[in-house]
């Protein structure tokens, strides 16, 4: 339960346990693959201005729907071809990685803050607070997410900030549920009870004793919600009510490419695969973290 995957936490583990952990981490194929992909995408996103062969917004109507380089009619000028307005697909893909990562990360952060806060209160204080929290969670779960997100984005306008805010405000339920259960458990532990007995403040107990103990669970949930936010953003874009053109959002690229999918299949295949790979990698890392944190759950 207390196994940490971040270096800062290693000091609380025995050296032998640290070595054991490293072995387990490196031996976990899924986790390693996922982490490698995410690092690669992160690097691509950060280095996009240097890696991209062209301006992702520069259009050239005379060079529309040029196939990728592996096609007979493709060329290295646009390695992944061009889209329906003659914009370089590789450049858009690279810059699009920034948007997907930004949306996934920020939405998970916002929802994490909301959900964890709510879950901590519910799990720590119990009783009335718990009842109110469970009522709030149930209400949130009852709202049809996609429809509400679409409606709010349509009313507030489809800018990146708004989409991130809407996703963040909608995806915190899992954080709340898990945090609540974990907090509830940790609260019973001896040393927390001891801390309370010695008169530590509630805030201190939560921050210093409880939060580190539920960090594992939170990180796993964060990966799930990142993946969710990216997929949901893609779905909003696909329906034409997410972030707006000309942003090179991957979901938007699939949406715009779908008109051409029968005769120029790469225009939806490439961003679709990119989305799939990113979400798969995040899920693999999430699953890996869960296994590493509690190896007995698997088997």
């Amino acid at each position, binding site marked *: 339960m207390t196994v940490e995957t971040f270096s800062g936490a290693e000091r609380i583990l025995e050296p032998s346990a640290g070595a054991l952990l490293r072995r387990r981490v490196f031996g976990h194929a899924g986790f390693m693959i996922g982490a490698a992909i995410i690092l690669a995408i992160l690097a691509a996103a950060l280095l996009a201005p240097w890696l991209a062969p062209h301006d992702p917004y520069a259009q050239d109507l005379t060079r529309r729907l040029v196939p990728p380089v592996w096609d007979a009619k493709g060329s290295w000028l646009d390695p992944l071809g061009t889209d329906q307005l003659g914009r370089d697909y590789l450049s858009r893909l690279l810059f699009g990685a920034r948007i997907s990562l930004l949306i996934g990360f920020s939405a998970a952060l916002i929802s994490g803050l909301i959900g964890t806060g709510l879950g901590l209160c519910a799990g720590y204080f119990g009783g009335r607070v718990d009842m109110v929290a469970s009522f709030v969670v149930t209400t949130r779960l*009852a709202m*049809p997410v996609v*429809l509400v997100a679409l*409606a709010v984005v*349509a009313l507030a306008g489809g800018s990146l900030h708004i989409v991130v805010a809407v996703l963040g405000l909608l995806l915190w339920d899992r954080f709340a549920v898990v945090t609540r259960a974990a907090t509830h458990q940790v609260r019973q532990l001896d040393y927390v009870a001891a801390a309370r007995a010695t008169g530590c403040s509630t805030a201190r107990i939560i921050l210093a004793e409880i939060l580190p103990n539920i960090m594992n669970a939170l990180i796993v949930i964060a990966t799930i919600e990142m993946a969710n936010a990216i997929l949901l953003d893609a779905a909003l874009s696909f329906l034409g009510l997410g972030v707006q053109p000309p942003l090179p959002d991957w979901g938007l690229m699939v949406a715009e490419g779908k008109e051409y999918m*029968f005769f120029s299949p790469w225009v939806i295949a490439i961003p679709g695969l990119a*989305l*799939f790979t990113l*979400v798969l990698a995040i899920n693999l890392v999430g699953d890996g973290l869960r296994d590493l944190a509690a190896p007995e759950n698997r088997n």
Partner: protein
Amino acid sequence: MLAFALKRLALALLVALTVSIISFSLLRLSGDLAQALAGPSATAADVEAVRKAYGLDQPLWVQYLAWARQALHGDLGTSFFFKEPVAAMIAARLPVTMTLGVSALLFALLVALPLGILAALKPNSWVDRLALTLSVVGQALPSFWFALMLMILFGLKLRWLPISGTASWKSFVMPAIALGYYGMPTFMRLTRAGMMEVLASDYIRTARAKGLRAPAILLKHALRNAIVPVVAVAAVQLGFFLGGSIVIESVFALHGVGYLGWESISRADFPVVQAIVLVLALFYIVLTLLADLLNAFLDPRIRVG
């Protein structure tokens, strides 16, 4: 049991009330209702007359009560776009969404239950790996993308299934798969975990020791116990499917509630959007209530905790 049921019912009612307030405010936030009702070319005097006639000059809580009273009587307002009663429009489209939701659920269960059971019986076998891979891959596929791929493969290339519309049961096959696969991993993991827990329990070991054959054990004991949590989650999942079918409905041109909701948003027809949010939320509330009660009925431990 009764106390638990009453408590659960009270929570459901409270949530329903809150949801109704939220969906009520959705319409009010969408702009000046009087202006929308009077039409864009109306004069200021027209707008004021409409405001009076519809009681839009009253305090918000009075308006809410009036709206809620009408909603309880089945009057969900009138569509700006079609000028038709919203309740009738939703009622006409609900069967499509319900059929889609239920068939998606059936698909998910039909794949997930056998795979989950097999995976539990032989942990780390190829079946187990396949199940795991399916669930990891399944959760990473963007649903609209998957739907388009299905359409190309089964609709266009193999020509096994109709591409859009609701002409026959065949029309629902692809949409059900595209919607259902996303819920599949949850069921698979639940079944696998539940089965493993039960298989490891004392009475199965006893039964095995008594010399009962494996299939008999499976059917008689393990499955029944392992399936309890699945049933409860299935009800909740159905609620998600009903609310989450928008993308699938739009790709396959199924004129269901989700499609109507999406179209209504893009033409700013907020009385319809509001009503759909309310109806879908109520469905979810009822389904989770049923799931909880069923769960408590099947598994007495829950009632206490």
